[in-house]
């Protein structure tokens, strides 16, 4: 029965449709009854305080964590059916960068899904990976051992690994955490370029100050969904206060000054 349900098309007009999703670790819920709809072609930020369950939400959507309740549809189908259309950028510090391999090899890993079991990457895959590295301006580091890259460069390699998948929908977990200003600018330009090609991008983002400038869709999360929709509707003092609670007292002053001085964002 459940299997049959999974094969059915459900909400095909939405890039991501999450309904009644609850996730718990050891009987403690970390995500409560999430209803989430993201239309195609947006650059969406998932924003919320530490421990809000942002990474858990993405991981559950991708089937890496089994939910206690609820269901997830991507372009109307289950993740398993849409796997080839989905690219994922995990947090940079979730892997060991001392692993003995090169940037090019890491990017090639993005193509393993299309290759399937047993088939080896060949010249064609290497070329595609090289092209993806060019897109993030990392081609000169292709044969560099990954531990020798800076944090920003490692993040670009991860981005290239997602680009090479040529997916329709991208999930990224804090791609701009701990990177320098140049890399942040480069990354956001690539994300905007992908959006202009009609792709959907769902980004866990940690920096409230840049949300308005970078994104056009916003999901405020703190264990449950507090608000979702176009940034201009969601980015309000009440919503932020609801999501961040006490922490918002600190943020508040910062935000107000930024809002009244919006032109500052343009320069970033």
């Amino acid at each position, binding site marked *: 029965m459940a299997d049959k349900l999974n094969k059915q098309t459900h909400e095909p007009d939405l890039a991501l449709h999450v309904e009644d999703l609850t996730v718990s670790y*050891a009987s403690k819920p970390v995500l409560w009854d999430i209803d989430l709809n993201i239309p195609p072609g947006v650059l969406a930020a998932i924003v919320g305080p530490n421990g809000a369950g942002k990474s858990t939400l993405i*991981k559950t959507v*991708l*089937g*890496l964590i089994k939910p206690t309740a609820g269901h997830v549809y991507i372009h109307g189908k289950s993740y*398993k059916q849409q*796997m080839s259309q*989905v690219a*994922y950028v*995990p947090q940079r510090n*979730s*892997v*060991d960068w001392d*692993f*003995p*391999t*090169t940037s090019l090899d*890491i990017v090639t*890993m993005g193509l*393993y*899904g299309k*290759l399937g*079991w*047993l*088939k*080896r*990457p060949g010249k064609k895959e290497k070329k595609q990976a090289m092209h993806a590295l060019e897109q993030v301006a990392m081609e000169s580091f292709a044969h560099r*051992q990954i*531990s020798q890259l800076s944090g920003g460069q490692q993040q670009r390699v991860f981005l290239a*690994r997602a680009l090479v998948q040529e997916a329709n929908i991208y999930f990224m977990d804090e791609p701009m955490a701990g990177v320098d*200003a*140049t890399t942040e600018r480069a990354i956001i330009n690539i994300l905007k370029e992908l959006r202009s090609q009609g792709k959907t991008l769902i980004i866990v983002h940690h920096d409230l100050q840049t949300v308005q400038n970078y994104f056009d869709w916003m999901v405020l999360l703190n264990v449950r969904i507090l608000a979702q929709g176009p940034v201009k509707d969601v980015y309000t003092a009440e919503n932020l206060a609801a999501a961040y609670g006490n922490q918002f007292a600190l943020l508040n002053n910062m935000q107000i000054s930024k809002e009244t001085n919006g032109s500052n964002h343009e320069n970033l």
Partner: protein
Amino acid sequence: MNLLSQPDFVIIAVGALVGIASSLLGSFLVLRKNSMLADAISHSILLGIVLVFLITKNQFSPFFILGAALIGVLTVFLTELIVKTGRVKNDAAIGLVYPFLFAIAVVLINVFARNVHIDTDAVLLGEIGFSWINTVQIAGFSVAKALVSMFLVTLLNLVFVVLFYKELKLATFDPGLAAALGFSPSFIFYSLLSLTSVTAVVAFDAVGAVLLVSFIIVPPSAAYLLTDKLWKMLFYGAIISLGSSLLGYMSAVALNVSIGGMMASFTGIFFILAFLFSPKYGLLAQEIRRKSLEEENTARTLTVHLYNHENKETSDEECRIEALDSHLRWSKEKIDKVLSYSLDKGLIRKELNNSLLQLTTKGRVYAQEVLEPWSNI
């Protein structure tokens, strides 16, 4: 007597095959930071062996392989189960599970099989010296049994690693992405550990638990110090295993000591050599690099100092050689060193009877790299 049952050759070949079979799998365990699971498995398979023996009453049976694989998987499963409580961390969980399974095995041997050949020495280091005694006839040749079985296991591991190289690499580096792309990282991981168990049980007679662990962990760790490429790490690990077996046997014979002990010692010697002399990650190379970085940093400090005072009223005072002593408080020796280094590299030049220091274009760029890192991005 042909080569395949000749004692010297059989002992060295069995040692080398155990080493190659182990280090192939061990490389992935080391990279995955799970190498101590190999220790756990190599001990707890004793329970598998004893149970199968008690059930089949037969010392040579294919069920040993199955039993060992199951116990190996059980060891890992129990460890992960205990970790899930959240109050027992991974290392403690490993330490909880395998001594327990191992202890049950020892008690079972005591109660049911007092006259079986398993003894403590054999369990720890095996009896590789006797590996040539039991032979089988293959195509009219008498071949040591241990050689045949270890050859098959090595072949199995090699086929596994070659076939699933891509999957193993992805699941080891980034299990999250592996799962998202539809490769089950836990399936890959359990396959790896099952093969480790199979290798352990087949090698058990010959090498015992401790020698096996040293073959699983030490050659890959030494190889990891020597290269930045995964396939080279696998290859070097195999070479080091081969070398350890050969040199271990020869020196054991020469010194009339335990063969297994010498083989294990040689894996350690190879590791120490890599640890000290690896061109990139060795202690020596790092020390040399640190020294030259120190020199470079001092030179950079000088260029930054000159850059800050360039074309200012104070430049006459600040950019004198004497200022290095009176302002920067550098020792005479350090000043001589940094001046000769910087002149050598063309970062500075001396002006006005050698008393004033001036930056060259190269030196200016050198300073800017630190002060204005954004200017050359």
